[in-house]
């Protein structure tokens, strides 16, 4: 179910002395099944943008269409929209409140008015999808580790079976291992269910590895909207707005500067590996291996 944004503006504190334009004429089409990364510096408007996708924030002007329907129409069912567009906030573990993990995950589907059996089935599936072991199901969510809490919170949104999953900085405050685990799990989930996933982040390395489209936000505008490879070609501009290309891109560029004939059009470690292999294979083939 595609989402279309048409000239969306959002201004904070319009009637105070200091209005702030957080979104500036955003046009965006989010088709089904894409894996999208939204990247931007702190305060670039990325969190504001994603809160418009499920109607939590109302655009100051402009229209948002979900599956062809204007979400600001009087008779539009916001609750249904929120079950279809699942939004996981920053530090989602702060929203946990139930006495045990399983009941907490049941909260979302319960609000949809499903049967008890269906609710529990969905909660179970969701917890399995985020890779949480059965032994934790009946523990208090407050006794879990940070990474586990976050999985429970993500499961809480997944249990509503959204068609679009939006994750706002899902790795903030996690250690490298926790970060990789969460991202791997999300990638796996994407592959298994085929839903649209939108990953909001300010880390290029996090995003480059997984997504097939990157939207770069700067000062409330969309600066780039393209494949990761195409976006990272603008690395100079990215640095200017306080972002960076993935580290591996810089390594390749450094190799080039030292006279190695490798391409810097590389965004992940695997690609870099292949590129370096290709380079050495070329050397061996031409017999210049003893450089």
């Amino acid at each position: 179910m595609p989402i279309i944004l048409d000239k969306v503006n959002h201004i904070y504190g319009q009637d105070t002395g200091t209005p702030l334009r957080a979104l500036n004429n955003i046009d965006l089409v989010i088709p089904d099944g894409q894996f999208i990364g939204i990247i931007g510096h702190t305060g670039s408007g990325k969190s504001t943008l994603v809160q418009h996708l499920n109607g939590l924030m109302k655009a100051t002007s402009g229209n948002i269409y979900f599956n062809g329907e204007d979400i600001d129409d009087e008779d539009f069912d916001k609750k249904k929209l929120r079950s279809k567009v699942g939004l996981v906030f920053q530090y989602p573990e702060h929203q946990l409140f139930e006495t045990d993990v399983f009941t907490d995950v049941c909260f979302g589907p319960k609000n949809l008015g499903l049967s008890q059996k269906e609710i529990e089935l969905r909660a179970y599936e969701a917890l399995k999808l985020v890779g949480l072991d059965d032994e934790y199901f009946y523990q208090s969510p407050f006794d879990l580790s940070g990474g586990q809490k976050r999985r429970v919170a993500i499961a809480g949104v997944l249990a509503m079976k959204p068609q679009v999953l939006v994750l706002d900085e899902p790795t903030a405050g996690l250690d490298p291992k926790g970060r990789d685990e969460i991202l791997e799990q999300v990638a796996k989930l994407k592959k298994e269910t085929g839903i649209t996933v939108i990953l909001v982040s300010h880390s290029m390395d996090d995003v480059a590895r997984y997504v097939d489209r990157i939207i770069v936000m700067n000062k409330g505008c969309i600066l780039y909207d393209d494949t990761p490879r195409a976006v990272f070609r603008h690395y100079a501009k990215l640095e200017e707005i306080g972002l960076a290309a993935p580290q591996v891109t810089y390594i390749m560029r450094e190799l080039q500067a030292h006279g190695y004939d490798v391409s810097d059009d590389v965004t992940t470690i695997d690609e870099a590996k292949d590129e370096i292999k290709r380079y050495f294979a070329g050397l061996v083939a031409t017999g210049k291996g003893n450089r």
Partner: protein
Amino acid sequence: MLRDITLGQYYQADSVIHRLDPRVKLGSTILFIISLFVFDGAAGYIVAAVFLTLVINLSKVPFRFMVKGMKAIVFLLMITVVFNLFLTPGEPLFTIWKLKITKEGLRLAVLLAVRLSFLIIGSSIMTLTTTPNQLTDGLEKMLHPLNRIKVPVHEIAMMMSIALRFIPILMEETDKIMKAQLARCADFDSGNIIKRAKGLVPLLVPLFISAFRRANDLAMAMEARCYRGGEHRTKMKPLHYARRDFIAYAVVACYLVIGVAAGRLEPVLLAFVGITGGVSV
């Protein structure tokens, strides 16, 4: 929703009123409130209105901000007015169905409405032009003499400033948690009162947890910087009276004198108006 409450919010501007010593503003606000209860004739309130208009103008805070604060007490105001209007015994003016409106009731209702709105506007001027920190600093200094009778003034002021500081933080947190639960299709505003109260659990539990977590963090941070309250603690911005502060005191004193005098002279003034009115006819 929660953000609409202006009462107790600071409005950034550069004005004489903003620069006044917080003690002046605190003291004057208290005097102003007392004056509202002392006056009981139209003349006193006209003086109060003139004084308020003057101060609002000087403060450079848009008037609509003060009115925003009034929204919070509209309900209370209505109840007061309605009860006084219909339930005060006295000389009946006119009757609607079984409800009698008396002359005394009308007078009392108008009086109380004016009194309450002036009270709110007056205290909003103070909170809109004084940061919570300044306010507690002022309070601490004003109450300092109580230290001698073993009242922990500094600790009380500290608690107050922490509490005030946490209001916007917790409001923001509430907003965030509310949105997070709304994203899970929570329902905060439908159903009967019991259902609604139950609906608040997913909001209140995380809010309390986060409040305790923040309190803990703050205590830890204060300990880490060797905070010890009370005596011998110096201030980064010690309070000193400047000339404008004395002028402000003088202005407030003038206001009180004029207000009381106007109240006393009201019958005379009315008579005067009556005479001139009579002459012109």
